[in-house]
C-alpha cells in the first residue's frame, strides 16, 4: 500500500490486489522518521484511476460488445503485471487518531511522508488494546471481521444516551437484548418498553427451559399484573397523564386538582369516590363533561385499581432489581395507543419519584419505537433532565427520522445496522459522534446482524461487529402467512 493523498482528515491510499483489505478495516500509516503514526479507517474503496484503462477495456470489446476471442503468447508473463496495475484500488480512509509515544490523540494535523511511510492493516485486537476499549465490566458484542471479539465496557452505557437503529430484521432487538442481559448481569436495573412483546421470554432458553436470567426478568403487563392505585399516585403524575395522554384542557385540569385535593383531605382517593366527586362537583357543565370523559378513559384502561395489593408489583420488582439486578419488561403488546401513553407517563413519573428520593440508584431505560408512546416534550426531558435523575435511555427504532435531531446530537453511542435509504442515513449522520461519510459508506453495506458501533463504547473508533447469538427464546419474529409453505420448500 502506498500513501497517495491527504485532504483534511481523509487519506487516499493506493492498494493492490494481494493486499486484502475491506471497508471498515483500520490501517496504520507509520512514519518512522517522525516517530508518529496515523490510524485511519477505510470508509470506501474505489478503482484507482489508471491511465489508459478505458482504452484497455474498450479494446477487449470491439466485436459488437462481445469480447474478441483469441490467444496471447506472452513469454515474459507481463499479463499478470497488467492485471495487477488494472486492479489497483484507491482506499478512501478517515483519519481517526495519531499515535505518538504509544499515546492516542484525535489529531490529524501532521503529514506523514508519502515515500517513506509504511502502511499496514491494524488488527482489531491491537486497536482495542491501543484505544483501551475493554474495562472492568466487559460486554462481548460479537466478532469482528478478523475473528476477534469486540468487547465494550458496561460503564460506557452508564449515564449515556444510546440509539440502536437500522432497517427491519437486521438485528436491532437482538442487540438491545444482549446489552440488557449483560447490564442485569452486572446488577443493573433495566426497564424496557416492549411494544411487540419481544422481550417477555428473555428468561427462557431457545428450547424453552429457564435460563440464568429467569429470576431477574419481570414481565409487567398493564391491566393484568401491572396496575396502579390512585392512593399511590402523585397528583402531578396523574395531571401529566390527563393533560398529555388524554389531552385535558387547562381549565378542567385546575378543577381536577381541586377535586383531587378535596378527596385526598378526606382520604377518599379511590376510583368510585373520584367518579362521584366529579359528578357532584360544582363547576361548569363542559368542564364536568371533560373530566368525566377522562375519568372513564382511566377506568376503562383497566390500569387503575383500588386494591393496593394489586398495585404493588412494580415497586416490588424495582426494589428486587435494585438488590440483584433485573429487567422490568413493560409488555405493551396488546395495549391501545392511549393506554400505552398512560402507562408510560405513569412509569416515567414513578421512576423519577423513586430516583429523586434515592430509593433507586439509576435505571437503564430501553425504549422501542418510542415515538409511538412518548409525548413530544418527554424527548428533551429524557436526554437532559431525566439523565440527571439517573434514567439512561437507549432508543431502538427502524425509523430514524422519528427521533429528533437534538437527540442524535446528544447521543453518546450509536449502534447502527444496515440502512440503504439515503434519507435514513442522512438523519443518523447528524449525530455529533459520527461523520456522514462513515455512516453513508459503511452502514449501506452492512450484512444482517452486523452493526456499526459508534461513540464512547468504542472510544470513537467506529467498528463493525457481528452481534453474537443469544441463548434466549426470541419473540420478535414476524408472523408469516406462507411460513409452512416456505418451510416445506426449503
Amino acid at each position: 500500500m502506498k500513501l497517495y493523498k491527504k485532504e483534511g482528515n481523509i487519506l487516499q491510499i493506493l492498494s493492490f490486489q494481494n493486499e486484502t483489505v475491506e471497508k471498515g478495516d483500520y490501517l496504520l500509516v507509520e512514519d518512522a522518521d517522525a516517530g508518529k503514526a496515523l490510524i485511519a479507517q477505510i470508509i470506501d474503496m474505489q478503482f484507482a484511476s489508471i491511465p489508459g484503462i478505458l482504452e484497455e477495456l474498450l479494446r477487449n470489446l470491439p466485436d459488437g460488445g462481445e469480447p474478441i476471442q483469441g490467444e496471447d503468447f506472452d513469454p515474459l508473463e507481463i499479463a499478470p503485471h497488467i492485471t495487477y496495475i488494472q486492479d489497483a484500488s484507491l482506499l478512501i480512509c478517515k483519519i481517526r487518531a495519531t499515535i505518538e509515544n504509544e499515546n492516542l490523540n484525535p489529531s490529524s494535523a501532521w503529514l506523514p511522508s508519502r515515500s517513506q511511510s509504511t502502511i499496514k492493516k491494524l488488527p482489531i485486537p491491537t486497536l482495542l488494546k491501543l484505544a483501551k476499549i475493554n474495562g472492568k465490566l466487559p460486554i462481548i458484542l460479537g466478532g469482528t471481521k478478523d475473528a476477534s471479539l469486540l468487547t465494550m465496557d458496561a460503564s460506557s452505557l452508564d449515564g449515556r444516551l444510546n440509539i440502536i437503529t437500522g432497517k427491519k430484521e437486521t438485528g436491532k432487538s437482538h442487540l438491545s437484548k444482549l446489552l440488557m442481559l449483560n447490564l442485569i448481569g452486572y446488577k443493573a436495573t433495566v426497564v424496557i418498553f416492549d411494544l411487540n412483546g419481544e422481550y417477555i421470554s428473555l428468561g427462557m432458553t431457545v428450547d424453552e427451559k429457564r435460563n440464568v436470567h429467569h429470576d431477574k426478568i419481570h414481565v409487567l403487563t398493564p391491566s393484568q399484573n401491572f396496575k396502579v392505585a390512585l392512593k399511590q399516585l402523585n397528583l402531578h403524575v396523574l395531571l401529566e397523564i390527563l393533560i398529555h395522554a388524554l389531552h385535558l384542557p387547562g381549565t378542567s385540569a385546575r378543577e381536577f386538582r381541586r377535586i383531587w385535593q378535596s378527596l385526598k383531605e378526606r382520604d377518599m382517593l379511590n376510583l368510585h369516590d373520584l367518579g362521584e366527586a366529579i359528578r357532584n362537583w360544582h363547576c361548569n357543565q363542559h368542564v364536568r363533561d371533560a373530566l368525566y370523559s377522562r375519568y372513564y378513559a382511566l377506568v376503562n384502561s383497566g390500569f387503575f385499581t383500588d386494591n393496593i395489593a394489586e398495585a404493588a408489583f412494580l415497586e416490588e420488582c424495582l426494589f428486587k432489581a435494585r438488590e440483584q439486578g433485573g429487567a422490568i419488561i413493560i409488555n405493551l403488546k396488546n395495549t391501545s395507543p392511549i393506554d400505552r401513553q398512560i402507562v408510560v407517563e405513569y412509569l416515567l413519573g414513578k421512576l423519577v419519584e423513586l430516583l429523586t428520593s434515592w430509593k433507586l440508584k439509576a435505571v437503564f431505560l430501553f425504549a422501542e419505537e418510542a415515538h409511538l408512546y412518548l409525548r413530544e416534550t418527554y424527548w428533551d426531558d429524557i436526554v437532559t433532565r431525566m439523565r440527571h435523575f439517573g434514567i439512561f435511555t437507549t432508543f431502538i427504532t427502524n425509523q430514524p427520522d422519528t427521533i429528533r435531531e437534538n437527540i442524535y446530537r446528544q447521543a453518546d453511542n450509536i449502534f447502527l445496522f444496515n440502512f440503504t435509504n439515503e434519507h435514513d442515513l442522512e438523519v443518523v449522520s447528524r449525530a455529533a459522534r459520527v461523520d456522514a461519510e462513515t455512516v453513508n459508506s459503511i452502514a449501506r453495506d452492512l450484512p444482517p446482524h452486523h452493526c456499526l458501533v459508534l461513540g464512547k463504547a468504542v472510544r470513537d473508533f467506529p467498528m463493525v461487529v457481528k452481534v453474537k447469538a443469544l441463548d434466549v427464546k426470541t419473540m420478535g419474529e414476524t408472523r408469516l402467512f406462507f411460513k409452512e409453505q416456505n418451510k416445506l420448500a426449503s
Partner: protein
Amino acid sequence: MKIGETTTGTLIAIRGANIWKQNQSYRYIRLGPFIFHITEENKKELYNTLQSAYFHSPHEPSQSSPNLQQMPTRLATLLERWLQTALTKTINNGIILFDGSLTSGTPDTPTQLMREILATARKKGNTVLAFSKMTNLRFNGHLITDAIPKYKPPYLLETVGLRPKPPIALLGDIYVAKLTKGNYAFRLDIDKEASLEQKIEAVEKLLGNDYLSQSYPETLRLAHILCTFTANEVIAMQHFITHKHGLKLINRPDMHRLLFGPFGKGEKKA
C-alpha cells in the same frame, strides 16, 4: 515502443498480432510484449541474431546495424515480417491483409524476403492486399489518396508509370482504394503477380466478408488496436522490469521545462 532509458541504452517493447475472421467472428493471436534492452554494444548482435534466427537469411548478416533511435521500429518490423511469413505459410485460399505497402528494398523490407513471402502466399492460393494509411505518392502535386474522383464507392483507381529508384522495388500494383462512403481513401498494393481478375476478386471478397469503416478493413483496425500499448500496459511493463531486474525508476528531468519554465513545451511535445 520505448518504455525507458538506462544509463547505457534504451528499453523497448514490441508486440504483434494476427487477426482473422472466421464464421462471422474475429479471432486473434497476439505475440508479446517482447522487451529488449538495446545498447550501442549489443544492438548489432541483437538485430543480426534475430534476423538470422527467424529468417534463416542466406546472406551475410548485415554489417551496418541501425542506430539506437531506429531500433524500436527495426525490431518491430522484424516481428511483423515474421508474422507475415507465418501467415502466408498457414493460410489457404484466403485474402491476406498486410499493414503497409509492398514496396521492398529498404533495410526493413529486403526484396528477397518480401518476394518469398508473396510467393508462398500465391502457392497457397492466397492474395495479398496491403493497405497503407499514409503515402508519399503524388499525382499532379497532390497525394494520390487526396485527388480522388467523385465516383460512387466502392472503386479502385489504378496508378501507372511509377518507377522507383533502385534498390527500391514495387512488388505490388498500386491502387487508390475507396471502398466505402466517406472522406477517406487508402493506398492499396496488390501482389503484382496476381492476374487482374484475381486482384478484383480479392477486393470483392474483402468487401463481402469484412466490415469496412471509412474504407479501412476491420481486421486491420483490430490488429492495430490489439498491438497498441496503453499507458496501463507501459506501467505494467515498467513494473515487471523493476521487479524482475531490480531497476529503479526515476524521472529524467525535462530540460525544456527546466530551462524555459512554463514556456518549455516539454521534450515529448517539442
